[in-house]
């Protein structure tokens, strides 16, 4: 396979950055939702989705 270095760099950087950003967002969400009262924690309506799988 030609250009293997460029391919690894391109795909690698993209996937790593997206992964890190995703983790960061999830972690921010966890920290925030702990400090918000139970009733206001859900976003859309008060349907209050139960724990998912």
């Amino acid at each position, binding site marked *: 396979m030609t250009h293997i270095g460029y*391919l690894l760099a391109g795909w690698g950087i*993209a996937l790593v950055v997206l992964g890190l950003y995703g983790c960061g*967002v999830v972690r*921010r969400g966890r920290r*925030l939702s702990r400090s918000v009262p139970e009733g206001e924690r859900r976003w859309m309506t008060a349907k209050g*989705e139960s724990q*998912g799988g």
Partner: protein
Amino acid sequence: MADGRTSTGSSGSRLLGVITLVGLASLLLFAFVLTEPDVRLHPTTGEKFGQFDAVRLIYLHVPMAVLTYAAFLTCAASSAFYLVRRGAWWDVTAHASAEVGTVFCGLVLVTGSIWGRPVWNTWWEWGDVRLMTTLVLFLLFTGYLALRRTAADPQRQARRAAAVALIAVLDIPLINRSVEWWENRTLHQQSTLAELKIEDLTLFTLMLGFLVFGLVFAWLMLHRFRVGWLEQAQARHDVTLAIAERQAEMETLDVGAAIGESGGEK
């Protein structure tokens, strides 16, 4: 996975996450194993030319570029709705799409640069319309996010951010036009699909790329939106607490002593 009640996850988002991961795995399979490299034979000399394996970056770069523009358009549209309707929902959507869009935009620039090196023999090409437009767009939205991080009154900040987003997106056609007139020496394939030897499988993989990065984008947006929503809920909660605190403060306060009830005294 932590308790669902203290995270931005939900059954829906988790299902989406799993599908996204499976999609990414299959995209990697198609992009690196099943598709052929871009090798063309010169019609007269019979020499081999083309992008060879570097073309495999297309499945990453092009979908992300399209999604970047989609994100910024979403941001501008939500900002416009926010200015008209004043709903917190629009503000949170605008902020979320700007942030996710900026991450995508940065990656488009980086992967484009990495792709350009072997194919065009340069990391950077001044005067390439799409390159320059995307760069200015990235800078515009970096400014937007900087504005979002200032410690200002939330409503004031939201309104100004909406104005910045709208102006930024209105500015894109002007930037595009000016760069095009400035130096029209684009290296980008005028139509990617026309120049490259696109086979059925390559086309399919590109479409799969759009789908998978679309899913990544949707998953990020979902969680980022919920983070923004929680931030607003927390701000509302803080105000409620502060009002209660002020009211309690008054109960314990000796007003007479504080203002010098005996009169005149400062």
